[in-house]
């Protein structure tokens, strides 16, 4: 009886293990598929992304990554995919979009998905750029500094009698006047109202002027704010800033005009230099790089990208593993050697790549800012309904630039609108 019982148990166990075999085989042959959406990186960085994905898959045989590069329709596609129940698992978003997505409940908090050690591998500021209500929603990827470096055309500065590059924003404005008067070229193209942001708030922040009061209300209409805005209005009205700066993104316009010898200086990252090198090799050869002037608060500001995990992802754990791999120091440094990005991992500051000496403008600029990831900080928190508020702010700045409102009236109107409509 005992033997029969044992045989039956054995047969049962055997049949169970046999029936489990196909399932185990199926599991082994169908790994978890993680969908990854990058943003505007294809086709230029196809090689880098494919190599990094292959390395991740080799290290994690149970996970396959399906990569798509999204461009203009990224956010809309994201929303639609959530609606259709086919949300991606890892998505590349910038600071503003991450904040909006997190505030509206689209993202999974990373606490619990990645270890504290992973979170600690990034500089604290870039990490907190993607935090909302005490939780982290994005692993910092590549970044940039708004002030970064000063790229300049020494010939135009020389013609204007400028022997040393401007060290403060007031000197920058003086230089713009001298350069335009002496050469006809513009000094630089300040960001007056770049799309999807509120550029002038950045200048307020750079001068240490607050955007919000202690109670969270908008306060950017003090006499100091008005005085700073007035300086830019006078520069614009004097014809020292191109009219198109009100209509087009300043960095793009400035880079384009610099390549045509119509602008003498660019404040920004080395990515401007890449475009100049591609468009005008002779001008690139004589282009010099120096330390960019900062506002009175002497702070750098910057922006960056993150990899986020949507709440609707079906594989959040694997997605977080992949996001951590893509954004680790090794992979960010590989990326930095291909294109002048600013890595956001702490270990990048000690990388010998950023300590090399070179006379080439891009290498020099990369060395100057590559290890400065700790300063990546937009400077102020975007309000909940930033689209409506930024539009109102920019409309008021434009009205002030075009003489339809005084600087005081424009800022008063905008502060009133913000405080009446702001969602936290």
């Amino acid at each position: 009886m005992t033997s029969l019982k044992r045989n039956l148990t054995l047969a049962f166990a055997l049949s169970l293990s046999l029936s489990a075999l196909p399932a185990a085989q199926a599991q082994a042959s169908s790994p978890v598929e993680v969908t990854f959406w990058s943003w505007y990186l294809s086709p230029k960085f196809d090689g880098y992304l494919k190599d990094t994905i292959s390395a991740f898959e080799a290290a994690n045989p149970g996970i396959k990554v399906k990569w798509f590069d999204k461009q203009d329709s990224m956010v809309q596609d994201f929303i639609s995919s959530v609606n259709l129940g086919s949300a991606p698992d890892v998505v590349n978003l910038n600071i503003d979009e991450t904040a909006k997505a997190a505030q509206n409940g689209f993202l999974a908090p990373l606490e619990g998905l990645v270890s504290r050690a992973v979170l600690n591998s990034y500089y604290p500021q870039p990490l907190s750029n993607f935090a909302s209500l005490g939780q982290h929603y994005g692993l910092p990827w590549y970044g940039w500094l708004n002030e970064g470096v000063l790229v300049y055309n020494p010939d135009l500065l020389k013609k204007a009698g400028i022997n040393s590059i401007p060290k403060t924003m007031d000197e920058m404005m003086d230089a713009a006047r001298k350069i335009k008067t002496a050469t006809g070229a513009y000094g630089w193209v300040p960001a007056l109202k770049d799309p999807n942001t509120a550029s002038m708030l950045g200048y307020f922040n750079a001068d240490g002027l607050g955007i919000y009061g202690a109670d969270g209300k908008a306060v950017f209409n003090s006499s100091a704010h008005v005085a700073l805005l007035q300086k830019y209005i006078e520069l614009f009205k004097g014809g020292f800033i191109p009219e198109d700066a009100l209509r087009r993104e300043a960095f793009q316009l400035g880079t384009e005009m610099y390549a045509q010898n119509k602008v003498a200086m660019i404040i920004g990252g080395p990515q401007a230099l890449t475009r100049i090198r591609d468009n005008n090799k002779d001008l690139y050869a004589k282009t010099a790089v120096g330390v960019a002037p900062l506002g009175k608060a002497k702070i750098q500001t910057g922006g960056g990208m993150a990899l986020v995990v949507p709440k609707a992802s079906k594989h959040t754990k694997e997605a977080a593993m992949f996001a951590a791999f893509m954004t680790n120091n090794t992979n960010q440094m590989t990326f930095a050697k291909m294109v002048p990005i600013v890595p956001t991992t702490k270990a990048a500051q000690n990388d010998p790549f950023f300590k090399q000496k070179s006379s080439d403008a891009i290498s020099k600029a990369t060395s100057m800012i590559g290890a400065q990831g700790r300063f990546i900080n937009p400077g102020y928190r975007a309000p909940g309904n930033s689209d409506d508020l930024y539009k109102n702010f920019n409309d008021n700045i434009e009205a002030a630039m075009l003489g339809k409102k005084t600087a005081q009236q424009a800022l008063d109107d905008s502060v009133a609108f913000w405080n009446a409509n702001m969602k936290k």
Partner: protein
Amino acid sequence: MKPSANTTLLAYTFLAPALILLTVFTFYPMLYGAYLGFTEYGGMRFAQGLAPKFIGLDNFRTLAGDDLFWTGIKNSLRYLLVVPVLQLASLAVAVLVNKQIPGIAFFRGAYYIPVVTSISLAAVMWEWVYNKDGTLNWLLERLHIIGAGQGPSWLGNEATALYAVMFVTFWRGFGYYMVLYLAGLQSIPAELEEAATLDGATPWQLFWKITVPMMRPTILLCSLLSTIAALRSLEEIVVLTNGGPLNSTYTSLMYVYNKAFQGFNFDYGMASAAGLVVAAFGLILSFLNFRFFRDNGAQS
């Protein structure tokens, strides 16, 4: 004779596929979109998987107090100025290219090229034309109409931006309407014109007494289509001015678009409500088009 049950069934069978497609892709989205206008349905509710919340006329009350929306409506109505100019020009050119002269096929094709040109490409080209250092100012300087460096940035000037963008709409639509008019012209029986000519009608009388009355259905169609297109103009504006300067090119559809597609802060409720108001304007204008062209046509 009354059709048999089989014939009726067969007719419905043939109608069914199109009807199903129209129901799924047109009627249902339209009705659901109209319903959303009376609801609160933004990013937060959507992300949490909550259904739209019925709020009656609240969205319309918000719209009524939103200056930006009314700026959009005013600009959309101003944009309608392009309609009569576009219709007259395309009808006139259709009459010209209707002549059988050597090389006319080239002109018919050439006028149609802007219709099939991508808006992104067209935007780059028109940027070059309208810039302060652009082709238009260069031409005006050469003709001594303006002094050197005196030309405006046509898209950056509050007084000129809307008209500059309207001209791009004119340029893009011209070939399309010309082809429609050409088809209409070629369907006019030649014997009518021959009889009128034999009766001593001048070319001018021929145009106004024969061509225009015979063309009224085509004129109504083109006028209706271009009125609706003008009211819904968006692409040119987004790529050329994005509504600026000082919202002088900000149209009502841009308001709808921005509310619906402003990233994660989207507000389908407000966008649908604004869309319903724009649609109401479209209906009124369509009704006026029908009144004007159909009644006159009946009298002639």
